[in-house]
């Protein structure tokens, strides 16, 4: 037993470096997904039918394929075909980010559509341009409503990030597996790996919970129903 603890202790710095890579990967992919997902959701709700159809096609593609297939398709397929010699880490951020954009856009779209037409009408009646109304009236409200769904997306993406092991990103699982195969001690290594993931999931969701409370509108959308 002591032997196992000693191994965990010794490998911890190595695993924590992997933890930093996972955080970078998830942060990058969520960020990319956010930056692309917001305009996509706006385009789908307020754009013309061609733009809307194009976005639906994008969402259909990225939601329709397993993440591992996407990774292989892009990393070994498209990126090589284009002659882009991307590091596995960058490729993983791109693929997970583009995929997350598809999911995030649907979270935001749902929130925007839940607002009701009146908000846009009132903004336009004051003489705001459509873009101003979206920026100052629609999005501030839609983003607040999106936090619970977004928190879900974080938890899923974090765990999906382990699959980048398959293209050799040096994240937590890759490192745990590396030590496990060299020391023939899979149990302590994968347990440590699991604990790190659980802490990351819990911590991130907790932070988003705090954010949700902080930006909640007084008198509106109380977190707990009395019924």
């Amino acid at each position: 037993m002591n032997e196992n603890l000693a191994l965990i202790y010794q490998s911890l710095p190595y695993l924590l470096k992997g933890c930093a890579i996972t955080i970078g990967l998830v942060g990058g992919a969520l960020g990319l997904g956010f930056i692309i997902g917001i305009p996509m959701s706006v385009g789908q709700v307020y754009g013309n039918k061609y733009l809307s159809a194009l976005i639906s096609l994008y969402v259909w593609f990225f939601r329709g394929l397993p993440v591992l297939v996407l990774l292989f398709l892009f990393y070994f397929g498209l990126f090589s075909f284009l002659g882009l010699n991307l590091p596995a880490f960058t490729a993983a951020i791109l693929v997970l980010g583009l995929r997350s954009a598809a999911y995030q856009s649907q979270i935001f779209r749902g929130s925007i559509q839940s607002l009701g037409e009146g908000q846009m009408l009132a903004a336009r009646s004051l003489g705001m341009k459509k873009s101003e109304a979206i920026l100052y009236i629609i999005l501030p409200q839609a983003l607040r409503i999106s936090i619970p769904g977004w928190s879900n997306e974080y938890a899923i993406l974090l765990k999906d990030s382990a699959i980048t092991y398959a293209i050799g990103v040096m994240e937590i699982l890759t490192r745990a597996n590396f030590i496990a195969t060299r020391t023939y001690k899979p149990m302590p290594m994968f347990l440590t790996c699991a604990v790190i993931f659980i802490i990351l999931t819990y911590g991130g969701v907790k932070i988003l919970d705090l954010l949700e409370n902080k930006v909640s509108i007084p008198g509106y959308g109380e977190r707990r129903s009395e019924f």
Partner: protein
Amino acid sequence: MQKDKNLVLRVEDIHKKYGKEEILKGISFEIEKGQTKVIIGPSGSGKSTLLRCINQLTILDKGKIWLENEEVTQTKKNINRFRQKMGMVFQDFNLFDHLTALKNVEIGLVRVKKIDKKEAKEKAIEELRQVGLEKQADLYPAQLSGGQKQRVSIARALAMDPKVMLFDEPTSALDPELIGEVLEVIKKLALSGMTMVVVTHEMGFARSVANEIIFMEGGRIIDQGIPYKLFTDPDHERTRQFLCKITELYGKSEEEK
């Protein structure tokens, strides 16, 4: 347009179809400065659509609208400039739920009129004072009563210094107890010389405030005239029927009580 300087709004032969159904079948009227026109009529007669056509929230199929000496319907590009000059109050308030009462009134000044923040705040507070809500400035819409919400939405529209105010059934979503406070504000506004178009079912209010009442049904103006004439001796039998029914329902005007 004729050179009548007092004419604020002129609506000329407006048509609007939704699918195959024609909602507006040629509506024309005009309003002089300081006048209040009240539009009444059964549900589905096109009253709300008419108001939305005036500030182009609904694009009309045919017809012209003039605000003072400019044609609103001609210049699609500048529609935002015209909308600033036409304050709109909605049946269900449509306050911006994420903003305090003060910010609701302020946002048009800051974002549309690009007035500097300090000045905008002062003006917004003044507008809230006009509707008796300066103490509620920091409350969010969800913390206000229906009547208070509607008064904030009136203040929000007034802050833009509109040439004309459009009210779309401003009291229809309110508890009976709260209707009075909103009507009071609108009445005060009428007395202060604001030009207004009001769609309402409040007949007592219509009689005491309107310079002219327009009775609409089926997308047409059936009857129009000064309140006294419409209530006592309308040109059309249909107008009399409608007024009888609605007066029964909503009570008689103050003078008759």
